[in-house]
């Protein structure tokens, strides 16, 4: 009897909290047919925003992948002072509010900060421009690649790398032929997670981008702006597009997950 009660509570809670709201937004988006959806999607500002999101996500994913693998190797393969501090630092972004991330970057790279002012004098604009948005996105998705790759590196050990080394392979060759194939699934998984986080980032980007329409406005910022300006149709359409991408990423993750352990 109480088995059914537990099932009822669990299913009911999930349905009301996640299932129904998500289904409803799909319904609301398509209730007047495809024409308004198409119109919203081909709006030039919306298209521009998707392009900005894609560019920012591309650079954030690329840099975090390179950096993530580097740090994972550093954390697992090297012993040095401050190694645990480095580990804590990597995880810190999880606990920091996206708004605080934005504020932090403004305080260092804004026009009125010493470093930001100096860069600005040399023609490099960080805040209210792409570099700042990439930095913000990288900050919030920092741990994802490292945390996927580090445990796998730990598990495979160093024997194979040492063998390659004694056979005369140099560092690059060892990495490409031995290390990379071993971590490829974990790396792919981490990259996919980073991509999901990068495409969906809102708070940190909202602060550092300045929300300039047709300039630095991203897809998530369009959702907010249109919703506040009572253009619900566009807000819903962009939301649903982002939701569909998120669901596709989830499916991809589920396909990848079992292969992690082979």
């Amino acid at each position, binding site marked *: 009897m109480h088995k059914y009660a537990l099932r009822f509570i669990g299913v009911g809670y*999930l349905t009301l909290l996640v299932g129904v709201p998500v289904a409803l937004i799909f319904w609301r988006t398509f209730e007047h047919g495809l024409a308004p959806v198409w119109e919203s999607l081909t709006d030039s500002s919306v298209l521009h925003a998707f392009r900005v999101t894609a560019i920012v996500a591309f650079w954030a994913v690329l840099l975090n992948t390179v950096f993530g693998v580097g*740090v994972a190797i550093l954390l697992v393969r090297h012993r040095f002072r401050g190694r645990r501090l480095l580990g804590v630092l*990597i995880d810190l972004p999880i606990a*920091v509010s996206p708004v605080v991330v934005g504020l932090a970057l403004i*305080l260092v790279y804004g026009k009125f900060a010493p470093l930001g002012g100096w860069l600005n004098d040399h023609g490099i604009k960080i805040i209210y421009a792409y570099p700042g948005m990439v930095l913000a996105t990288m*900050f919030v998705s920092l741990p994802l690649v490292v945390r996927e790759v580090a445990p796998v590196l730990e598990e495979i050990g160093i024997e194979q790398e040492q063998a390659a080394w004694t056979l005369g392979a140099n560092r690059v060759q060892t990495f490409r032929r031995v290390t990379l194939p071993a971590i490829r699934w974990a790396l792919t998984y981490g990259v996919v997670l980073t991509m999901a986080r990068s495409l969906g980032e809102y*708070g940190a980007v909202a602060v550092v981008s300045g929300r300039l329409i047709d300039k630095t406005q991203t897809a998530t910022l369009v959702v907010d702006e249109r919703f506040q300006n009572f253009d619900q149709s566009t807000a819903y359409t962009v*939301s649903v597009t982002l939701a569909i991408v998120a669901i596709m*990423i989830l499916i991809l993750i589920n396909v990848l997950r079992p292969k992690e352990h082979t």
Partner: protein
Amino acid sequence: MGIATLWLSLLVLIPLGAVVWRGQRDGVPSFWDAITTPQAAAAIRLTVVCAVLVAVVNAVLGTLIAWVLVRDQFRGKWLLDALIDLPFALPTIVAGLVLLTLYGAHSPVGLELAYTRAGVVVALLFVTLPFVVRSVQPVLLELDVEMEHAAASLGAGNFTIFRRIVFPNLLPAISAGTALSFARAISEFGATVLIAGNLPVASVHIYTQIETDNTVGAAAVATVLLLIALSVLVSLEVLQRWAARHA
């Protein structure tokens, strides 16, 4: 290694340090003034109260859902399992909008939670859903059912079995998930910004301060959030070390 350190410093360490530095730039008394203005104090209080509530609900219902997903068998369970991860994958602003379609103005179920504390709690419950479920689930899967059978054969009731056998084994996972969902709840911005309206939520308050160029006030409240999040994560780490030693 030098590059990694420099990189992390430029991206994480120096900016976060700058926040704390800016927060107390005009001395401790003015830092105190900045976090005790009526709005700032209300924002911190509301956020912490909501986050505690969310953590408690997650601890109970997250464990329950993990239990249902592992021990119960019924058709369509995979769909339920898939739903759990959706809040993580969904952009937070989309999560806020999604909840407003059901619980906002003209709610089809007659529950208008927009601009209320309950609405903020629901939004936070949405984004923190996976934490407890996903940390308890694997532990529950590994848990040996024999112990429970043994307890049952010795006459223990379901509740006693749960309290004496299952719960102690799950406790580390539950507390880890709860702590993470608390940390996430106090820092959430995207999901709450649309639902909160004029309600003072800490991250929305910080955002407004940034927009009005009051970076000192923003940095002061941000410092408080950072300290709370950090102390939760550190005490979790300490607790787990202690538990590992006394297991």
